[in-house]
């Protein structure tokens, strides 16, 4: 099969109208908001050295915050504000998706516009300012009829830089729930689907390039006072924006949104749920790549309708419990706690995906390590790797406390790369997932946890409050609980981790459905 006839290109292209439309939407809104804020600020501050310094300083500081972190910060910030407005004014808003992404990107877009507006206005020939005053203009008339038009080419250059930054950074808004071209990149990275990663990168680069070219045309037109250039550039931008936005507005809003966290198993399960809902004649789409804490809040706020979480994760991280009841009791109690928040725990899927400390079997045998108790003695000479959240999760603290673990070094890694890294000896131990197919493939051993420091992690189906009494949805999901055992899930995950045409989440989900006896 040739590179270009790979069916994954077509799979990727199917999502393009949605992803591209959402990407343009959030970029445009952010840019507009950024402009509305930074233009007046720059105009007000242009003649005061102190406020100019403060403004540019603050904007520069924002610029030094990595884009992903800035986006991630806006989510809890808005969540806190939403809970305050709920308490004080009786309403709240969604801290998920569009709003935090737009605000963070708007903040990110401000520096070039601020800097160029100030530079442009301050660079005007003083003789012209005097002429404007001399012919009888008020300061405001001078600003709008002389200074801003003359500074416009420089301001446009700033807007162009901002636009390119925003379009690039918008790819990072996927984890906080804003659909963007970043969905390709995040999904591709998680499922080792390099076709998707490439598709996302190329699409966002082309978008940025096109916008850059059109804005350059406008800027040149303004600078050289050529109406034709300005007009062509404006028409180009207008056509581009309309063409990308029309499909996303014309598209029927999907009634059910299925959430997925940032790893392959979640992509497969969300695809499975999506397929089940569609098979039942319901409109459904997925919202993938959501952060672990974001996704639960999104469900509680009805921003997504259904997703799969893990009992232990909710128990420890969401409800801050330190007791470790046995599997069945934990599930029952969790169901009650969730019900208080109107969240329905529809059922357990049948397998656990627990955190487990994992090392190559040969190495474990050689060192005589078969449980975490054995490991503790060797830990000071070993290097451990975990996913991005593991070392800040309570499970890790509980493990350290129960066994007195202290490793030489700990390192964070993309979950997909951990298994190969431990198999090849680049790291000694990893905090892996028990449902991971590559544990078997690489002949890795999961170390026993005799002190039960890690709680059980049943995969559970959760429904949003507004779906608590949705019979159609519950009927469509009925075939799933208690049907997926650990061996099946491992095999599905192994398939999803491959990088061939049959390893897309949708393809694996179809396989999984057949495997568990669906028609």
């Amino acid at each position, binding site marked *: 099969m040739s590179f270009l006839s790979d069916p994954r290109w077509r799979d990727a292209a199917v999502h393009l109208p949605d992803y591209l439309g959402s990407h343009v939407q959030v970029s445009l809104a952010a840019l507009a908001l950024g402009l509305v804020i930074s233009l007046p600020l720059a105009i007000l501050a242009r003649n005061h050295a102190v406020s100019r310094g403060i403004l540019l300083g603050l904007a520069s500081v924002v610029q030094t915050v990595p884009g992903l972190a800035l986006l991630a910060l806006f989510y809890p910030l808005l969540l806190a504000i939403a809970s305050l407005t709920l308490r004080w004014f009786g309403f709240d808003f969604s801290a998920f998706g569009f709003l935090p992404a737009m605000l963070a990107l708007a903040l990110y877009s401000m520096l070039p516009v601020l800097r160029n507006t100030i530079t442009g206005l301050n660079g005007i020939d003083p*003789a*012209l300012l005097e002429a404007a*005053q*001399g*012919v*009888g*203009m008020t300061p405001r008339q001078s600003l709008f009829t002389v200074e801003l*038009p*003359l500074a416009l080419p420089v301001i446009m250059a700033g807007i162009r830089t901002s636009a390119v930054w925003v379009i690039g950074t918008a790819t990072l808004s996927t984890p906080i729930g804003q659909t963007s071209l970043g969905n390709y990149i995040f999904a591709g990275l998680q499922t080792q689907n390099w076709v998707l990663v490439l598709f996302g990168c190329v699409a966002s680069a082309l978008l940025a390039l096109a916008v850059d070219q059109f804005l350059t045309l406008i800027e040149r037109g303004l600078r050289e006072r050529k109406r034709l250039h300005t007009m062509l550039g404006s028409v180009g931008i207008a056509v581009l924006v309309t063409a990308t936005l029309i499909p996303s507005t014309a598209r029927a809003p999907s009634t059910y949104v299925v959430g997925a966290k940032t790893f392959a198993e979640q992509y497969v399960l969300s695809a499975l749920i999506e397929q089940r809902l569609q098979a039942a004649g319901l409109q459904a789409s997925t919202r993938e790549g959501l952060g672990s804490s974001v996704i639960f809040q999104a469900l509680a706020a009805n921003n997504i309708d259904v997703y799969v979480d893990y009992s232990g994760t909710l128990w420890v991280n969401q409800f801050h419990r330190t007791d470790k009841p046995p599997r069945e009791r934990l599930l029952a109690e969790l169901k009650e706690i969730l019900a208080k928040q109107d969240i329905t725990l529809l059922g357990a899927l049948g397998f656990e995906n627990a955190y487990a400390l994992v090392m190559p079997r040969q190495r474990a045998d050689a060192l005589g390590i078969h449980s975490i108790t054995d490991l503790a003695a060797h830990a000071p000479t070993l290097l451990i790797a975990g996913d991005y959240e593991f070392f800040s999760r309570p499970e890790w603290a509980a493990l350290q406390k129960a066994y007195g673990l202290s490793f030489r070094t700990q390192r964070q890694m993309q979950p997909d790369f951990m298994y190969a890294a431990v198999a090849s000896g680049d790291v000694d131990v990893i905090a892996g997932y028990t449902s991971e197919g590559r544990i078997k493939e690489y002949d890795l051993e999961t170390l026993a946890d005799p002190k039960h420091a890690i709680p059980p992690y049943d995969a559970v189906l959760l429904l949003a409050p507004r779906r608590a009494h949705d019979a159609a949805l519950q009927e469509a999901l009925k075939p799933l609980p208690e049907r997926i055992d650990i061996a099946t899930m491992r095999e599905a995950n192994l398939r999803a981790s491959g990088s061939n045409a049959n390893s897309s989440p949708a393809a694996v989900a179809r396989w999984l459905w057949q495997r568990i006896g669906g028609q």
Partner: protein
Amino acid sequence: MALAPLIAYAHVRKSFDNGHDAERVTAVDDVSLDIAAGEFLAIVGASGSGKSTLLRLANRLLAPDSGRILVEGGDVREVDPVRLRRRMGYVFQSGGLFPHMRVADNIAVTPRLLGWPAAEVAARVDELLELVRLDRSLHRDRLPHELSGGQQQRVGVARALAARPRIMLMDEPFGALDPLTRDNLGEEYRALHRRLALTTVMVTHDMTAALLLADRIAVMRAGRVVAQGQPAELSDNNEPYVAELLSTPRRQAERLNALLAGASAG
């Protein structure tokens, strides 16, 4: 003359921060000067003599530290400076045209600020283009950078005249032009000054131009008016600086006379 002067400076003083130390630089030092209605006054001096500052004080582009300036009988500090400027024409050194506006829009600036109806503004623009001898069809819709220096300065004069001011302030209006253009424009402007019964204050460092165009000349040096009067009165003045300023045009005139006499004799 029994008439009250149209512009009257009385003991006017103006100083500036010199930027780096606490000392202030005095630009205009206790100047008293009257300009009569219909008069063409030239203020002559070297750069830094305070002549441009004196001009800017008349339409409140600058405010005096002390002293009084009356324009048409009113103290400039007691009227809205924006309105004051709209009723005085101002011609800037090398045009001061707005580079992003077409010639017609540059000329129309002040009438539009005053809220004239569009048709009246358009008619006035055409009238002015004719007045300053610019071709309507050729120049009306051009941008300033597409014009020659002389044409730009004609537009500058038209813009200053647009709202029918009684008073024209001109800051080195023809300084950046080639001699022939400068001469033509100067003569044409002098004709306009008479025809429209304007009162003109022109700042220049060129004594020859001042002598040829103005009714009266005020000579400034180091912030003070050291001499004033009609050309003939100036030549009787015994201030050495005035004599120095007059020496160049005198020498040029004598030499020209000699050359032209020689030519006709030969």
